[in-house]
Each structure stands twice: as C-alpha cells, then as structure tokens.
C-alpha cells in the first residue's frame, strides 16, 4: 500500500517553542517535499530533498529547516515558532516527472 504518513495530525504550540513535524513514506521514493498550504496562496514549497542528506531550499525556507537521514523519513523543524507559521503542512514524495503522493497534512497552530 503506497502511503505517506505524517505525524502529528494536529499540533498547538506556543510562540517561541520548537516544533518537529515527522513524515515517512513506504515507496522508496528518492524525492520528498514539505509544503505549506494557506488560503489563497496554494501549496508553497518549503524544502525539497533529493535523497539522504541532499536537501534544497524551496520558495519559502525562512524559519524552517529539514533533516533526512533515511530515504523513507523526512522531518521539518521550526526553531522558535512564530504565529505566522500557523498553517497546514503537507509532506509529499515522488519519482521524477510522475505523481506526487501527499500525506494527510499536519494542522499547526502557533499561539
């Protein structure tokens, strides 16, 4: 069963706290992504990972960092979360030029 799994699904954090969003995939895809989704802005790419320890900034990387130590696992870290990072975060994976598979998303609220 091809799947991208995100944990947690819902998260509430205080401003200034650190946040860790976890993502796993069981398809051995080389490429993984983190997007955030905001009304009217669509899906904005935060980071893309081409394989283990091969990560590149996307369009909105400021305030975020990522870690990929295993091909099947890709983490998004927010050091000192800000209220404007309240959003829905989607992890995804793909093979070049083919379908992108999305996780169910993590709804993060920073208060």
């Amino acid at each position, binding site marked *: 069963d091809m799947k991208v799994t995100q944990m947690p699904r819902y998260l509430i954090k205080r401003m200034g706290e650190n946040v860790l969003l976890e993502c796993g995939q069981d398809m051995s895809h080389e490429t993984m992504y983190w997007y955030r989704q905001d009304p009217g802005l*669509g899906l904005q*790419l935060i980071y893309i990972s081409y394989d283990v320890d091969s990560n590149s900034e996307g369009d909105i990387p400021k305030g975020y960092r990522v870690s990929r130590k295993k091909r099947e696992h890709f983490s998004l870290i927010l050091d000192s979360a800000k209220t404007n990072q309240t959003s829905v975060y989607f992890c995804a994976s793909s093979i070049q030029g083919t379908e992108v598979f999305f996780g169910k*998303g993590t709804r993060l609220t920073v208060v």
Partner: protein
Amino acid sequence: GDSVTQTEGLVTLTEGLPVMLNCTYQSTYSPFLFWYVQHLNEAPKLLLKSFTDNKRPEHQGFHATLHKSSSSFHLQKSSAQLSDSALYYCALSPSNTNKVVFGTGTRLQVLP
C-alpha cells in the same frame, strides 16, 4: 523560473453545466503538467497528467489538453456533478528536475 498561473480563485456553477478551469504556465524546460484535486479535509491527489505523446489525459470525466503554443493546460468536464466540488491545483514538473511547482488553486463549487 518555473511558474503556474490559475487566474480563478473560485468558480461557482450549477450541476450539469460544463466546467473549465484555466491553467497557464512558464517553464524553461519542456515540463510535465498535472491537475491535482483536494476535497475538504483531505490530501491533494493526482487527477490528470500530461502525456509526452500529446494524447489527451482523461479521468473521472475530466480531461485536459496541453497546448504548448499557448502554454496552457486547462481542465474541462462536460457536465459538473455535486461531488466535483473541491480545490483544484494545476502543477508542473520541469523535465530536468524533480521539483514540482503548484498554482494557487481554484476552488470549484457546484450547486444543485
């Protein structure tokens, strides 16, 4: 750079009427084009993908035609259903990279 433009934020129409959602793109390299659909509280999932041999992709009554001359990949359906109400994203993937760029999305609202 690579970009996707969806000019309509919201499209509202009555069940049974035809659907057309606009998508234009810019890309240096000949890209693959996609349509993704996201129903409420769900993840986006693939609806259609352009073919390299100019065949017209179809799925669930939807189809899209890639026009390289006008850099467009509009999504169409002959008769809208209530269950088609969702957020639709046009996306591209340049042929030389794994990066996928999404448009801002068009919300389709089908009314009875």
